[in-house]
């Protein structure tokens, strides 16, 4: 492989993601590692791993942009750019024409409104509580004694429209335990959980897009891997929701593309 590469690092509180792109903006390698307690070590390991996967050494990287909560701690970056801007850039590359991006991560969620050229025109965040995020689903999966990755398909048989009355992660967990103890069907409970997340998320989306008619909606973040949540959100919005192949790395991809854009603008032949 010849030519300079551009690195995007998304240092989140739960996972550290890295994406390498070439000068054409094509992704050549990516990786995801759990952040853990030692952020700087993880950033180093993530960098090394993505370079190994690409079969290149550090010198191949012409520019790095960092995003995520730990972005200011990444050394050797040309810029720290927020995950809002990076996610917008990433989703526009993967799904051009996206009007609204819903990103639900481990412990926060956001809705981003994009214009026709993929620029951010508005955004809304829920970073005050875990309700509706990956943490919420982890707690519920624990209460149901199932694995998080299996949640997505478990609601397929649900019919009754069971609803949860609490969105607080702590109280919802108690409620799920009570429902299980009273013999409620797991599929119904899981469907209720997915509907609860969708209801909360659609409220966030409305803050950036009061009307949904005709809007192209995409979803990113770890929770986007849960097909049940995606289905429930599509039902709540009345619009199809598209999920790219690797929804967790949209932010890192966006960061890599921004690194490329800025580096080439400064020096078209780095």
């Amino acid at each position, binding site marked *: 492989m010849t030519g300079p590469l551009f690195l995007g690092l998304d240092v989140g509180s739960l996972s550290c993601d890295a994406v390498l792109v070439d000068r054409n903006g094509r992704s050549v390698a990516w990786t995801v590692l759990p952040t853990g307690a030692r952020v700087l070590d993880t950033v180093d390991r993530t960098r090394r791993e993505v370079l190994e996967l690409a079969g290149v050494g550090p010198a191949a990287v012409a520019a790095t942009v960092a995003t995520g909560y730990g972005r200011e701690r990444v050394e050797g970056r040309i810029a720290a750019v927020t995950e809002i801007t990076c996610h917008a850039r990433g989703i526009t590359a993967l799904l051009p024409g996206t009007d609204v991006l819903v990103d639900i991560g481990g412990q926060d969620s956001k809705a981003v409104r994009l214009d026709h050229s993929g620029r951010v025109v508005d955004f809304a965040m829920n970073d005050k509580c875990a309700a509706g995020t990956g943490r919420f689903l982890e707690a519920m999966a624990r209460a149901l004694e199932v694995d998080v990755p299996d949640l997505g398909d478990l609601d397929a048989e649900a019919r009754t429209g069971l609803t949860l*009355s*609490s969105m607080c992660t702590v*109280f919802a967990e108690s409620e799920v335990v009570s429902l299980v103890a009273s013999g409620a069907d797991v599929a119904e409970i899981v469907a209720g959980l997915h509907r609860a997340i969708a*209801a*909360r998320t*659609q*409220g966030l989306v*409305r*803050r950036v897009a*009061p009307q949904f008619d005709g809007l192209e909606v995409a979803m990113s973040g770890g929770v986007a891997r849960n097909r049940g949540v995606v289905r429930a959100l599509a039902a*709540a919005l009345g619009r199809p929701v598209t999920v790219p192949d690797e929804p967790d790395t949209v932010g890192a991809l966006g960061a890599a593309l921004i690194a490329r854009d800025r580096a080439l603008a400064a020096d078209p032949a780095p």
Partner: protein
Amino acid sequence: MTAGSPPLVGFTCRHTPLAMLHAAGMTPFRLLPLTQAPDRAGAWLHDNLCPHVKRVLDRALDGDLPPLAGVVLMASCDAMRRLADAWGTARPDDRVAVLDLPMVDNPRSVAWLTAELERFRTELERWTGRTVTDAAIRSAAADLATLATRLDELAAAAAAGTLPGGWGALQAARNLTVTAPLDESGRHLQQLAGSITRGKDPDCPASLPVLLVGNLLPDPTALSLLEACGARPLADDLCTGARQLVAVTLDDVPDGQVTLRLAEALLAPPHCARTLCPGEPGRWARELATRARASNAAGVIAHVAKFCDPYLARLPALRLELREAGLPLLVLEGDCTSGSVGQHRTRIEAFVEMLAEGT
């Protein structure tokens, strides 16, 4: 609503001059915060506003409303002011009247409210194309007073355990009186009164008498649930309960003074916590404590909508007054539905157990 029935006017506050709506040939329709409409109000206003206002706005945004000839909103508190703003923006084609409601009940405020009612009279006449006479207001007030008296009798029966369906049935009747034409409500209340039994239902589980206070709890299931938890209200002081219909006698009030008398009645005690008496700060809490003491209640349950500043700000004073009266207080903050009362089940049952231990 059936064909030929009077047109409906939506309202949300117990301070609404219902007699004027009836006098205009319209039927008041209380917009209760009970709906399956999706949560949209947070995006139009803010998530942390009271669920009363949010759910009413959700209904408006979702079209979960009967056909309304108009809406009248009282500027009773910050959340209601925001509801009026949002409604006007979200449904610009609706006819919406916003009436100022003073925060105090002194003569100058009564005069101001009277002027607002006169302004509203003109608005109603514009809406309906007919004159709203003092005579018609008098007549409607008398009918509403009759309904209020009948409801008081039903409430006494519910408190005594002799009303089939108990407080749930009472609440359903209360809801009907603010959503149906006067004659239909009258008929229903008469029927219900006829079903009152002589003695208490022997199968009725033992319960402890409480005074139920607060703002909104319109869901009949919520009240039944309260009784099922062993708490039997002896009386209530709720906006959707005993304070909902303002009973005022206007028979001896001459023409030209009718709206003044109506304004006095709307601002008179028993007060919503938002109305205060400058000469007696803290009067609301004192009056409730006096009432609780005078009744045979073993304790007080306050059900308050979340984020309701006028109520939440005054609860500490209420707790102090009740403590002096030797009466325990249980505060439940909720979303005005049976769902949130259900979530409070354990606390209500624990409170009842505590009261039972004490008696």
